Structure formats: C-alpha cells, structure tokens
C-alpha cells in the first residue's frame, strides 16, 4: 500500500447521514435499563480475530475493547477515529510514516480483574498479525505492512511498518481487533477465546444460550467515565427478517443493527408513528455480477457489456429500493466518498448507467446480435439469503429479460454457494459481493483486480494491474482520482469484467426511546453500545 498518504484519509468527508436522531443529541443520557437487540445471524465462535460475521459482532463486541475505533459520536465519517484503550489522539506516523506509537491508558482492567497493559495489546496484535503456526487469523493480510510490534513499557505500544501506508490506521480501527489478555493467551493458548470470553469492554458476559440469545451486564469498572449507561442488554437470535421486524413492532426488541428495506420501515412507522426513530445511511456493501470469463459466451466482452447495458440502475434505485436494502447508484467506490466518480460522469462514460434506458436496451440487443447471442440463456448463481441477494437476483433477471435474455436462478445455501463461486468456479454468471467494515476505497477496489484472491471472474488483464500499481504508488489525491476513474472505466465499461448493481442502503428503524446510538456506513461499526441509553419516560409512553 506504498504511497497512500494519510493525508488522503484525513481529507475524506463524512459519507453517511442520520435522520431523526438529531434531537437526541441535546439530551442528557440516563443510566439504567436493558436493551433488547434482534440479530439475524449466528455466532460461530467468540474469537473475532478469526470470524467475519456481524452475527458475532453485534452480540459479542460490547464485551471487548479495541485499540482505536470509529468515533461513536460521529460514526458516519470514514476517517474520524478515536482512542479506545489508548490515550489522547490517534497517533500520526513518525519516521516517514513508518512508526506509530500509542500511549495505553492505565487503570483498565479485564473482567477477570487483571490489569490491561501494553503487553496485552501487543499479544493481541501479535496473534492477529503474526499468528503462530497452526493458528488462524482472518485479517492477517490487512497488516502485511507491519514489521514489528513492541511494548517497551506498560503504557507504550509501538508499531513499526515496512513502508508508509494509508491503510494501516483504518485496519487497526477494524472492530474485529478485540483486545485479549496476555495471561489468557499464555495460560490457555490461542484458541481459548473461541469458546470463552474475557474482555475489558463496557459489558460483562452473563450467558449465551446457543441459537437463542446472549446476555451482557454493565461493567462497573469500565474506563470511559460514566459509561456504559445501560444496565445490560440481550441480543436475541432471529434469523428471519419478518420476525425481527415484528419483534420491534410487538415490543419484544428495541432495535436491529443490520438494516431493513424501506417498505418495512414504512410499515413500522405506519403502525407505531412517532414511537419509531429511523436512521439511514449509505452502506459500504455492494452486490456485483461476476461472469465466468472461462465459459462461453461470457468470454466475449460484447456479451458482458450487453448484460450491464440491460440493467436500468436508475429505475432500480427508484423502485427496487422500496423492497430491498439497496438504493444508491454508484461505481466501484463507495458513493459520496471523495474518490467516487460523480454520477454524471458515470452516466456519460459507463455502459448501463445512462438515463436513456430504451437506448441502452437497444444497444444491448445489438451487441448480443453481433456476438451471435440473440437468444442468450444462462443460469444466475445466487446466495440463499433474501436481503438483498435474492431480491436483487430476481430484479436482474427481470432486467435482462427486457433485452431478450432468458435467465434462471440457482439459489444455493451459503456453503455450496461459496464452493461453487470460489472453488469449483463452475458457474456461468454469479452474484458476488464486496462488503467492508471501515471505508477504505483504495484497499476495497482491489476486489476487481484479476489477480486478487477474491476475484472469481477468472480473467487476466495487465492494464488493470498496471493502473492499480500506480494507484498504490501515488500520494496525490488528484492523481488517485484520475487513476481510480481509469481503473473503474476499464473494469465496468471497457472490459465489463464485472458489474456493479446498486450500493446497499442501511435503514435502522428503532424504538424512539433508544438514544445515543448513531448509524455508521457499515453494520460492523459502532457496536460497543457504551454510549447507548434508554429514555425511561419515553419508554413508558410506549406502554413497555
């Protein structure tokens, strides 16, 4: 990641926005009360270093601290990071941006009573960055630039990097970097945390009934003054969206942190009126269409471009967005980010983004005819998850149909879906996705590189590699913009190696007595719950 200046990161402006929660800011938080959360996914293990699902972040994150985190009072900004167990401001890189020195707060204790020192943070990052032989670490690749981690004394932690990197700090801020106690790692080994919890976060672990719920209670020794406000919380497992929705509607839950489609929001508001507060934000997740370049006729760029041309993204944004958790038309970069291409430029330069829908469809038909594929039939591989996968898949099929393509959908449970997409690569065309916690465009767009480990389109292109290489080498934001535009045009238009559908849109309607929580552009972020509180008067008004 050489050359990505931290300056870039500092200049990036906030991308999300919140509705409804504005008035809450002026109020004084009240202590007490229990929060009920509904969670739509399951907990594979408690060790965030090896997991990657929000299903474990939502219930487990409040038990742990991290070194730094997104600012809980301004989580919509992708660049506003604050210290959690460190003190003062998030450090700037010294030694030409290759040394980061963190000052660790003293007086923090783990829930088992042992003090938290720099040695614990070092042991934690050693586990993440340099896991011992045979120990898994899911985000090792994000820390390739780290050369060493040292803790010269109890309050100092030093990261030495191989080269300056703009992606280092965002990587440290990832919510998965739970801080573990060195004593636990030494005594119980590196897999103990998969089934045991001992953190230093705002809440203490009470119980976890598999498949049912996780319960936490207030940590009275929490180091952030006066926090947490809640006495405790319960994260209830509810895999079906309709149940989660009804749970909020029927007072069984106060909030859900992933997101609902607008129609569901409208139904809730219609039923409960001002008892529901709605927060909304753009969401750093997007579904892609990945054609398999190794199968005919998807090796033909005309066919791929025709597929992209046939998709009316603006219509989708207007209509599909009512029933699915997607909305924003964008290119390969998270919309509204300074590096993102403005919509007018996309409309002018990229196939399938034009306002002239009929024209695009005619063009698509012509391209298909030219490629000898006027009666193209294929199967779309999709993941067995309703929102937004199946809804978007069904919408795409309807769009392609308008240009004469006959498409079936093969929806598979996640495990065989991954196997088909990633390992066997035996699909024609598949839905794929790019979903990140911290907004970090230059790292995020590596997904479209043919040599990236997570690009499943099976193609080669030297030019893309060259552009991306240059992108990594420049620190100049204007240059980055130019390069990223080139890269985007090559991916989406010239090669149409993959297609962007619509960016996700996060809508969190919740009971209006839940205060203090602010929406972030990712469902992984801002889930410590230390600043969340319940307005008791307001809750009484709800009859609960």
């Amino acid at each position, binding site marked *: 990641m050489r050359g990505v200046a931290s300056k870039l990161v500092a200049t990036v402006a906030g991308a999300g926005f919140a509705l409804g929660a504005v008035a809450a800011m002026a109020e004084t938080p009240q202590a007490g009360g229990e929060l009920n959360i509904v969670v739509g996914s399951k907990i594979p293990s408690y060790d965030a270093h090896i997991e990657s699902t929000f299903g474990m972040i939502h219930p487990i994150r409040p038990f742990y601290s991290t070194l730094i985190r997104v600012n809980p009072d301004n989580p919509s900004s992708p660049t506003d990071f604050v210290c959690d167990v460190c003190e003062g401001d998030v450090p700037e890189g010294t030694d030409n941006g290759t040394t980061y020195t963190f000052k660790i707060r003293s007086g923090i204790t783990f829930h088992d009573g042992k003090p938290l020192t720099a040695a614990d943070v070092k042991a934690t990052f050693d586990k993440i960055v340099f896991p011992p032989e045979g120990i898994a670490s899911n985000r090792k690749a994000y820390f390739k630039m780290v050369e060493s981690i040292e803790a010269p004394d109890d309050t100092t932690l030093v990261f030495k990097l191989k080269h300056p990197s703009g992606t280092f700090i965002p990587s440290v801020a990832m919510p998965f970097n739970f801080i573990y106690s060195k004593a636990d790692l030494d005594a119980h080994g590196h897999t103990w945390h998969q089934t045991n919890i001992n953190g230093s976060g705002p809440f203490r672990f009470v119980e976890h009934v598999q498949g049912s719920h996780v319960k936490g209670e207030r940590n009275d020794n929490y180091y952030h003054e006066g926090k947490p406000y809640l006495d405790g919380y319960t994260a209830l497992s509810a895999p079906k969206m309709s149940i989660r929705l009804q749970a909020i509607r029927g007072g069984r839950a106060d909030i859900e942190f992933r997101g609902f489609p607008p129609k569901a929001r409208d139904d809730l508001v219609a039923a409960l009126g001002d008892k529901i507060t709605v927060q909304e934000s753009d969401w750093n997740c997007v579904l892609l269409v990945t054609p398999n370049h190794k199968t005919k006729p998807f090796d033909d760029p005309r066919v791929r471009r025709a597929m992209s041309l046939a998709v009316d993204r603006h219509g989708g944004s207007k*209509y599909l967005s009512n029933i699915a958790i997607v909305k924003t038309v964008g290119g390969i970069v998270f919309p509204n980010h300074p590096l993102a291409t403005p919509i007018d430029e996309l409309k002018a330069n990229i196939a399938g983004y034009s306002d002239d829908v009929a024209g695009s469809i005619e063009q698509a038909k012509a391209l298909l005819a030219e490629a000898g594929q006027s009666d193209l039939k294929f199967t779309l591989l999709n993941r067995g998850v309703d929102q937004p996968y199946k809804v978007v898949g*069904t919408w795409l099929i309807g769009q392609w149909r308008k240009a004469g393509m006959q498409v079936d959908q093969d929806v598979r449970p996640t495990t065989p879906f991954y196997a088909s997409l990633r390992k066997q690569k035996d699909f024609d065309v598949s839905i794929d996705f790019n979903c990140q916690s911290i907004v970090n465009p230059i790292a995020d767009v590596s997904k479209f590189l043919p040599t990236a480990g997570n690009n499943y389109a099976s193609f080669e292109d030297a030019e893309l590699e060259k552009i991306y290489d240059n992108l990594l080498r420049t620190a100049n934001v204007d240059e980055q913009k130019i390069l990223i535009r080139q890269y985007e045009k090559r991916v989406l238009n010239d090669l149409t190696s993959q297609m962007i559908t619509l960016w996700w849109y996060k809508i969190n309607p919740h009971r209006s007595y839940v205060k203090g929580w602010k929406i972030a552009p990712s469902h992984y972020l801002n889930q410590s719950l230390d600043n969340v509180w319940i307005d008791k008067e307001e809750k009484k008004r709800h009859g609960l």
Partner: protein
Amino acid sequence: MAQTEIAPLESNTLPRQKTIWDAALRMIRRQPLGSAGLLVIVIMIFGAVFADYVVPYDPEIENFEYMLMPPGTIDETTGATFILGTDSFGRDMFSRLVHGARTALLVGFTASFIGAFVGLVLGVGSAYFGGYVDLIFQRVMDVFMAFPLVIMALAIVAIFGTGTEKVIIAITIPFIPRCARVVRSSALALRELPYIDAARSIGYSHTRIVMRHMVPNVMAPFLIMLTAFVGQAILLEASLSYLGLGVQEPTAAWGLMLQGGAEEFAESAPWVPIWPGVAITLAVFGFNLFGDAVRDVLDPKLRAQN
C-alpha cells in the same frame, strides 16, 4: 419424516378387486366430500393446463410501476386490471397463482407417480422374490423411510442446486419406501396363492408373473397411496420453497410466493401472503378429500360399514 410435519400414513389391507367405473360411480353417489374434492382438482387442472389462455399477464414480467397494488386495482389510463393485486415486483398475483397451480401439479403428480410406481415395482418384487432379497430390500427401505426428509431435500439442493426437477427428486425419494412397504404387505399374501404357484411351475418368467398376476392385484393399496401422495407432495413443495430449498424466482410457485417480501410486508400488503396460502390449502384439501373417498371405496373394511 417427522420434520415434514406430514402425518404418517396408515397401512392398508388387501381389498377385493373392483372395476374402475364401478368404483367411480359408487364414489359420486356415496362420497359428497370426495366429489367436492374432485371438483377442486378438476378446476385446478383446467387452470394449470390452460394457464396461458386464462391469465391476463405474463406471471414473470416485473412491472415496478404497479408495485404492491391492492386487489381490484384498475389503472384508469392504461386499463391494466389486477383483480387479486400485485406483489412487490409488480407482478400480477392472479397470473402467478394460476401458473403456480401448474408448478404445484407438475411437482405433485410427477413426484407421486414416480414415487408410487417405483414403490409398487420394488414392493411387489421384494415380496415375490422373498428370502434375502426381501430382507435386504426391507432394510434399505427402512433407512430411507427413517431418514429425515428436509435433510434429504437440503442435501439434494446443496449438491445439485435448486430448481423444479430437484424438488421433484427430493420429494419422490421418501415416497418410494412408503408405497413399497404397503404394497409389499399386500403382495406377500398373494405370493402364497395357488395360481401364482401354478404360474411359476408352468415356467412363466418372473417379469410376467409379477406384472400380469401380482401387480393388478395390489392396485387398490397402490391407488390409495398415489392419491394420498399428491396432496402431500404439493404441501412439501410449498414447504421446501418457503424454506428457500425448492422452486426459485422468478418461477411462479405458491410456497415461494409466501416467502420473503410476502411475509415481511404482510401488514400493509396482506393479499400477497393470503392468496397463495388459500390456494395451497384448497388444493391440498381437494386432493385429501378425494384421497379419503378413494380409500373408502377401495378399502373393503371401511366399505362394509356403510
């Protein structure tokens, strides 16, 4: 089988032989419920066969202009009419319901016929050959009978992918042992009859004896199982589609129409989940009424009571 929430089938004893017409006439006279069931089935078959002529719209055409329109919506300018409303993709509910009948019957009939027929052949064969063949065959049938159906279906979908054919396979497999078992117990009694012995001693081939002499004599339990299967298959298809393991969008199928948005938006658009539910209930109701009647007519023990 418990996971399917389909009640276990009762076994049936060997009935006396009867001509089909005789049975049919008897049924209409004596079985008002069965005849009502038959009426539902006939309407359903008519709708499924002539779906393309009956429905006003292509069931798969998405038209977001008409998203979630309530029943009886008429667009003044274009004259577009949606008598049962539209779903969240703006597709006409009525058209999807009628085409859904096609999917339901396709799955219902194919799975039942194949399942019952294979069961018939295996059951009679097993009884005829007896000995070790029968013993081993019985154990294999036990395994498939005891194996949880949803797990079988999930595995089939996970291995081969989703789609109408895979649903049919998943539903057919558990039907085979159920039919085979009933047919076998009827056939066991036949095996000892003098004329089968005689046929064997004349030197008729196994196939001939089985097909000409044994199979016709176990038609009653076979038909009872067959009619009982159709309703079950329709319900199973709906359940599997509801679980996301069956027929997939954009194909019109009743279970699928109850899933996802239908459930999530049920409060403001109740017509989306209500119609397919009514359709499934009516269809299965019809087949079950009919099946009960067939059983009453073909099963001499019950008939004697009337």
